[in-house]
């Protein structure tokens, strides 16, 4: 698998209802190999639910989820992560009480054995610029480092698809720039496909190849950044009158 345009992840009619509330409704989109896809939408648009659905943490009420060409509807989080889709969580996707080194090590456990693990930890840390703080306790590090640690753990598993849930929250301008650079390097060096959920629209516009816009659990638009910024529905629902911010 894996031609430049082949689809790694495909949802068709994905729907999730909690009691009377429909969190995600009839969502269909493709994640193509090698791209960085942005998933945006205002608060409560159902982004996190989508993430939980495609990573197997929640089961869909209806619809179909296809991963690497296989039907994965209803598969467990473990199965999906073992197939090569790794996600982070919005609130702290790392282990506070452990060292940065041990944090990253957890990402290697399933895939590697023996000394290869240590090597992978070093490489991953190097790539994200975490080498100097490997022996510090993760919880004591600045917020920006903690975000990177979360990404590093996921990356250490060398996923084919990396799903990042708001990885830029709480970072300052400089840090955001650095992390965006990291995304691109991840894609370029490891060929990892990235699905990015973000609030920071500007950053999403800058880094993503394509964007899917969610609104009230429904798919509002899909397309390259330029197209999205000019989409009337999106402007009305999400970007607001000042879409050039």
């Amino acid at each position, binding site marked *: 698998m894996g031609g430049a345009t082949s689809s790694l992840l495909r949802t068709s009619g994905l729907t999730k209802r909690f009691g009377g509330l429909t969190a995600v409704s009839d969502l269909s989109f493709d994640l193509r190999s090698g791209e960085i896809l942005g998933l945006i939408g205002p608060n409560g648009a159902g982004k996190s639910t989508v993430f939980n659905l495609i990573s197997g943490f929640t089961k869909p009420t209806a619809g179909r989820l296809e991963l690497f060409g296989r039907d994965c509807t209803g598969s467990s989080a473990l199965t999906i*992560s*073992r197939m090569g889709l*790794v996600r*982070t969580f919005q609130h702290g996707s790392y*282990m*506070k009480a452990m060292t940065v080194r041990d944090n990253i090590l957890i990402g290697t456990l399933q895939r590697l054995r023996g000394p290869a693990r240590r090597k992978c930890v070093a490489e991953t840390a190097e790539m994200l610029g975490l080498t100097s703080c490997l022996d510090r306790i993760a919880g004591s590090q600045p917020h920006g480092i903690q975000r990177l640690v979360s990404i590093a*753990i996921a990356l250490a598993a060398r996923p084919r698809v990396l799903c990042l849930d708001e990885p830029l929250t709480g970072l300052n301008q400089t840090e955001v720039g650095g992390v965006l650079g990291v995304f691109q390097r991840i894609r370029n060096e490891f060929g990892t496909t990235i699905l990015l959920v973000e609030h920071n629209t500007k950053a999403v516009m800058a880094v993503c190849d394509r964007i899917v816009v969610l609104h009230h659990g429904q798919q509002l638009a899909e397309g390259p950044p330029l197209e999205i910024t000019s989409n009337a529905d999106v402007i009305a629902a999400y970007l607001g009158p000042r879409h050039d911010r």
Partner: protein
Amino acid sequence: MRRRDHIVWLAGGLIAVAATRLFQDAYSISVVNLVFIACLFAASFRFVMLIGEMSFASAAFVGVGAYGAGVATTLLHWPFALAMLVGPVVATLVSIGFGLIVLRIKGPYFMLIGFAFAEAVQIAAAQIQVIGGPSGMVGIFAPRILDAWMQSFVAAVVVTALYLLYRLEWSDFGRLLGAIQNNDNVARTVGVNVLGAKVTCFAVASFMAGLAGSLTAFVNNVIAPSDFGFMLANFALVYVKVGGERSLFGAVAGATVMVLLSSYSIVLGASNELFYGAAIVVTILLMPQGLAGLVEKIRLRLMAPKAVRREA
């Protein structure tokens, strides 16, 4: 673990086992045995705490270990080594089945289901007449050749078991357990079988609890269901907390101190419960991080430059 750690363990273990030769009178020997067994049980209890859970079911696994030794020795007349191991092995198997079901539950629910399990096993054991019913089993003796060496044998078994637990804790598996305690979802998202890891941890701890039970049976020669109620696990938690749960040595120190305290407090007759309870309350209030926390504090105090000390 680094090479140095292995050497320290080897030396420390040898010293600990050799030190048991200093105790030759029957009473000291009995206390030394109790201390070592309590250390093992506390370490076993703490091993489950690595994944952030408290397993009061472990009292039942100590019981399974003890009854394994009892049945193998007095009913089946199996050789000693087999009798030592049959209980722990059965405890491990049972714990795998039990763990696969209940380790999906977390926190207070897991803790209280452990209580229920310990109670249920205790009542069940009392119903089975072959193993002595509520009266329990008598005459569980180690081979005569061990008579003069029992305390050293117990020490050797316990030190070896502690060493294995320590190695596991400082292995990548141990780090995984820490990660599960911290944030099990992260482990799950990078492809780790979290339930499998938890069950493995539980099974290892239950093997060690069973081993503590086997040793108990051979040391006391007599066992009864009432010995293995949930209070036993309560005490293991006390040992771990009094010593300090952050390190295996905390559990060991806590078990040692509290068993000595309880052996001493026997002489208080009716006031022993009062005294022991007060000791627990005072310790947990004055040393929330346990003895290990206290040692750490003193160490920092001694090592800190004056300026820092003034600040503190």
